[in-house]
């Protein structure tokens, strides 16, 4: 359990709703849910969620902190915005889901083996390196995310797509070495470092 997590438990004792309000992006909306269930029903990936949004909101109110934060559910969100469009109470559900996922990650409670989360991490690392996504590297990372054997299998399955992309010059073998980048990678890294600093300072406040 991370320090920050312990600190948060200490700070909010039983009131998980308050913790969410204070720390999760758009978390102050959670209380406004009236349990109609239209978000859960509208979600195209709904059947794959352990706990759909409306249930998560109820769990937050019921103080089910561990269960919510370690849940894989909010990692399933694909940002299609169906739920936001439909919510009769105007809850920014997509943002809340990402906010919860991010918060769980910060606390170290997010499920380690959750593929969306893993992929998100790869994507981020890939993107921030040069300011542009390196499709080839990202694709290979994704294929081999769950081990070598499965990676080969997936790569074989996708070979036609890859070949097509290569033919139409959307994919270059050269990307494996270096790859293309934005003009000012230094500048980008400076921006990201600053952002990280701000985030950490925020987190420190709670831990301090």
């Amino acid at each position, binding site marked *: 359990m991370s320090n920050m997590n312990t600190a948060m438990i200490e700070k909010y004792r039983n009131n998980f709703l308050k913790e969410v*309000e204070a720390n999760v992006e758009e978390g102050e909306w959670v209380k406004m849910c009236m349990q109609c269930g239209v978000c859960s029903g509208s979600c195209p990936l709904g059947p794959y969620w352990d706990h759909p949004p409306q249930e998560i909101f109820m769990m937050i109110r019921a103080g089910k902190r561990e269960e919510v934060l370690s849940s894989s559910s909010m990692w399933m969100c694909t940002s299609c915005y169906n739920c936001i469009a439909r919510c009769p109470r105007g809850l920014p559900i997509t943002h809340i889901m990402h906010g919860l996922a991010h918060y769980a990650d910060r606390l170290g409670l997010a499920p380690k083996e959750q593929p969306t989360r893993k992929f998100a991490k790869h994507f981020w690392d890939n993107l921030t390196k040069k300011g542009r996504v390196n499709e080839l590297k990202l694709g290979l990372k994704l294929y081999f995310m769950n081990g070598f054997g499965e990676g080969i299998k997936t790569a074989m399955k996708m070979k036609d797509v890859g070949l097509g992309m290569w033919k139409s010059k959307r994919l270059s073998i050269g990307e494996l070495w270096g790859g293309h980048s934005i003009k000012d990678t230094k500048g980008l890294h400076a921006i990201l470092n600053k952002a990280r600093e701000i985030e950490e300072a925020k987190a420190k406040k709670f831990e301090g």
Partner: protein
Amino acid sequence: MSDEKKTGCYICKGCGIGERLNTSQMATIAEREARANIVREHDFLCSAEGVAMIQNDIDNEGVNHIAIVACSRRAKTEAFNFDGVAISRGNIREGVIWVRPDTDEAQETTQEMAEDYTRMAVFEVNAMNVPKPSGEAEGQTNILIVGGGLSGMTAAIEASKAGYKCTIVEKSGALGGHAAQAWKRIPQHAPYKDPEDTGIDEMIAAIEADPNIEVCLNSRVTRTSGAPGRFSADISTESGDTKTENFGAIIQASGYTDHDVSHIDKLGYGNADVITQAELEALAREANGGPIKRPSDGKEVANVVFIQCAGQRSDEEGHLPYCSGHCCLTSIKQAMYFKDQNPDIDTTILYDDLRTPGAGGEDFYRSGQDKQVIFTKGAVNQISSSGNGAKVNFKDRILDEDVEIEADLVVLATGMVPNSGVNIDEVPQDEPGQFEVSVDSILNLTYRQGKDVPQLKYGFSDSHFICFPYETRRTGIYTAGPVRRPMDDQQAIEDATGAALKAIQAAENAQLGRAAHPRSGDLSYPSFRREGCTQCKRCTVECPFGAIDEDEERYPKFNEGRCRRCGTCMGACPVRVISFENYSVDTIGQQIKNIDIPDEFDEKPRILVLACENDAYPALDMAGMAGVEYSAFARVIPVRCLGSTNLIWVTDALNSGYDGCVLMGCQKGENYQCHFVKGSEMAHYRMSKVDDTLQSLSLEPERVATYEVAITDIERAPQLINDMAETIERIGMSPFKF
């Protein structure tokens, strides 16, 4: 105008009547058989010209009884509206040509139908008199308001604003009732976000400063007698002083009592920290905006759970079978008492269905959520003491699991029980002339039928009618507020304002001798022939409105102002001594007797149809409009209420050769549609005994049929008539034709 009766019969030829019927033959009948003094035909009787023709006869020929033989009495009412004369309507459009096929074969029987309706219209109007009010009212328009809570105070203030004097009788030592015990009220204005001041102090101040309003505290009504426009009430104080005052109308705003849930074990009401909504109001007032403290040890409440529908919405023993309507909003308001004082206090509302209707309701719900009140859909398993406050074990219906939460305080939404006085259907009535004051009674009415207003359901003295929430079974007495129906403050204010209007209306109309709803404005009222009365009490017992008392000599005492003019008394009277000026055993009897009864071998039976004017008659009218046909042998007579049907009409009809009788009233029983409450039921009951009569005449029981008919029975009502025609075909003609 001379008192001499002069009858004019006016036959319309418009709308195809002239083409379908031989109207001159009808005119001859009106003149020769029915002895109308003036008979005129007109091509278009409802035109300005036609109406002027009739008016001219009234003005210059002294015609004072008018039979209009044209369309239904429901049509062209504005045109055929003449002051100061008796009017009957023979319905030969909707009732004859529109329900009969336009064929050569049908022509003869259709013509006979029209001729009979002509006879009936003239004989009916000849038996009618122009009603005049009795003048029994005594000019009283002051309003007695029983109960000085929010509803009673509102009624007084609103009536006073319209210029009427009021007296509030309040049994406690102060005005304000439950509303005054509240810390704040549910908001009544946009944006419906925060609890508001109750406004009760301002109302009390307004009442105290109002010369139109008299307030009697620590007082009860120990006797009420009379009728709208002339009520007399004894107002007695706790110390025993009694004064008598007169009133034009009464508003009963006797309020409610909190439902006692102490015997419902699972609610754990015996625990110190489990309280009712009313008790929380007291704690909040004590706290006066500061932290609310729990009763057991005075600890500041940090965690509170509200239980909705506590002891309500269930048929289980000790539960109220209804929803009290206000409790969801009240709990949200009360949760805000905590949240507004300290947002860190945890407040949970445990509900089944959250009921916050309308614009204000939903806004207030959202505002509660916005203040972080937590709403959980669940059902209580058990509330018990935790040693430190209380614990609530419940089934969370969303997360589908049993949960236990601890709270410093648990608040139960227990609901309202109406203070409706004596249930007159369950207690024996006083002997006429003797009257004992009952402390349980709200009004202590000296009415023959009991001391209080009848209750409808679950003890509420509500109206049974959706369209007419102020329908009352005790004319001139209007219940208002939660005694009538469970309701919140805002609805109670509307309700009391409406009741004030109805009270004013009742008092004003009583002065003019006008009836109250549904025969609004009717000036006729029942009277009886004393020498013929056998004091059987049927009229006093059967009157659906408790309008008839018994005098010292045990004769019926009709109270015009209380009467709704349905005629149930007239139908009940075995010796037929009760009548209205324009509606009597005779006005109907004359119609029945004077139709043409063809010879048995003509195979033209006659079917008497007595149809309630409120539902069955309009249904038959609309059948005509829709082109639904029925037997040409039917003769339909509208009655004010089937309850006014006197058995003599049926026996007379059968004796004089009718082959069958069809009686059509409104729905009776628990979901009655009868506008006069019990009229249809009484008629059905009486007709269930008609078999004896039929037997004595050696007639088949099938010859009389009584039905419940709705206004929408546009096809069924004609079918019932046709069924009777078929029955007669099957069992044969009546042997009583002479």
